[in-house]
């Protein structure tokens, strides 16, 4: 289970501070798939980064009783100047994974071919997403944090993502941030909306979508 207790996040702005998240509390159960909705800048990515441990909350606490992935998003996780292979090696070393096995999985999933030997900064956003996704699921986390990234790929990539994540790893927890309502209602079993820095947990996914659209 992941438990967020009174997470509050303030950002310093030109004059004073802006509260992005205000006393966010919720539990994520094992196997739960939570969709997070909200308008641009509502704090969805911030919340997912705080849960992933990339950002520190201004106040509050996260209790993680599951191994949790890093936030799978457009940026982060990679060193642009290093090649895909060197990034892969680094991740294998810090997560204690077998290099050859992981390499084979990433080759098969990301389908980057020779491009894997080139610096990551030369990749297109779709290629970067494929590599990031392949590396994240190569590590068997109990909870995956996904920030939009599946949606950048082509239909083949989206299909394979669904297959790997929602079929083969159906027992894992997922927090998914997306603007794609169809996708959320297809894969999530619960949903919440962030609006005016408050976190509203809804009973069902359609209810959350309705709430989000009224906003």
């Amino acid at each position: 289970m992941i438990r967020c207790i009174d997470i509050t996040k303030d950002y310093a702005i030109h004059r004073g501070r802006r509260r992005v998240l205000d006393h966010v509390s919720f539990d994520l159960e094992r196997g739960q798939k939570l969709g997070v909705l909200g308008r641009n800048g509502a704090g969805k990515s911030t919340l997912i980064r705080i849960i992933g441990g990339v950002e520190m909350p201004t106040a509050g606490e996260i209790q993680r009783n599951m191994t949790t992935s890093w936030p799978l998003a457009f940026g982060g996780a990679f060193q642009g100047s290093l090649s895909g292979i060197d990034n892969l090696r680094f991740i294998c070393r810090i997560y204690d994974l077998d290099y050859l096995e992981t390499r084979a999985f990433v080759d098969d999933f990301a389908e980057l071919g020779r491009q894997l030997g080139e610096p990551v900064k030369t990749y297109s956003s779709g290629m970067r997403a494929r590599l990031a996704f392949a590396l994240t699921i190569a590590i068997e986390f109990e909870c995956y944090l996904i920030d939009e990234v599946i949606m950048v790929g082509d239909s083949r990539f989206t299909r394979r993502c669904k297959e790997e994540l929602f079929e083969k790893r159906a027992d894992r927890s997922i927090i998914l941030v997306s603007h794609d309502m169809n996708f959320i209602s297809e894969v999530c079993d619960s949903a919440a909306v962030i609006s005016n820095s408050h976190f509203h947990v809804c009973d069902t996914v359609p209810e959350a979508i309705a709430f989000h659209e009224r906003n």
Partner: protein
Amino acid sequence: MQSLRQLFMLQGRVIWALMMRELHTRYGRENIGYLWMVGEPIMFCAGVAIVWTSIRAPYEHGLPMTAFVITGYVPLTMWRHCVGRAVKAFEANGGLLFHRQVTPLDLIASRVVLEVVGSLIAGALVMFGAMLLGFMDPPQDLGLIYVGLAYHIAFCLACALLIAALSERSDLLEKVISVFMYLSLPISGAFTMVSWIPEHYRWILLLSPSVQDCEMIRGGEFGPQSHPIFSYTYTASVTGVLLLIGLSLTLRSRRFIVVN
């Protein structure tokens, strides 16, 4: 949950991974690659040793010039590289903190290990070279050299931790650090021995742990006739306090680092 031993092994793996990554980004895989880690300080040490040996008197205050330069430059390069690499280290490598097991302390530790190992290997090679060519005599007391180096490594780590944490919090520090490093050369101990200056002023030099470390290293190379002046307890306590402050600031710096 994880035992303490597993946690230490995890951090060991992280530091190792960071070192390999740093070697790749800094030197790439072209020509001699990793070997530049040693090649760079060798060129510096050997270059300075050759220039000083050829343009200055063969002896200064009764000490042979080549050995004097090498015993001073190795600790100096080690310190300069450690501090130089620590400035804004968190900003430059912030992306790595994306992975929860990577901590600010790991970032500094990996860089310090690389710089220390690089300058030690370079120092040893230059020393052997100078000895083979007859410009330097073997050390009188190898043990004292090791003690001095150990103290100096601890001092370099402490400075790197302090500078990394402080430069993250203040942009001013980042701007004045190169001036500070240059002005601190006289109290680095690289160019003088304490016994060369009037007794009245010696205490000023002896305040600096770096000077004390150099005295130990030179005492080991030249033996008692070089009149090294140092105190184990003073150096240990000052270095220890600096290390504690540096550690505490670094461990608390995570909150100030913005990861993109």
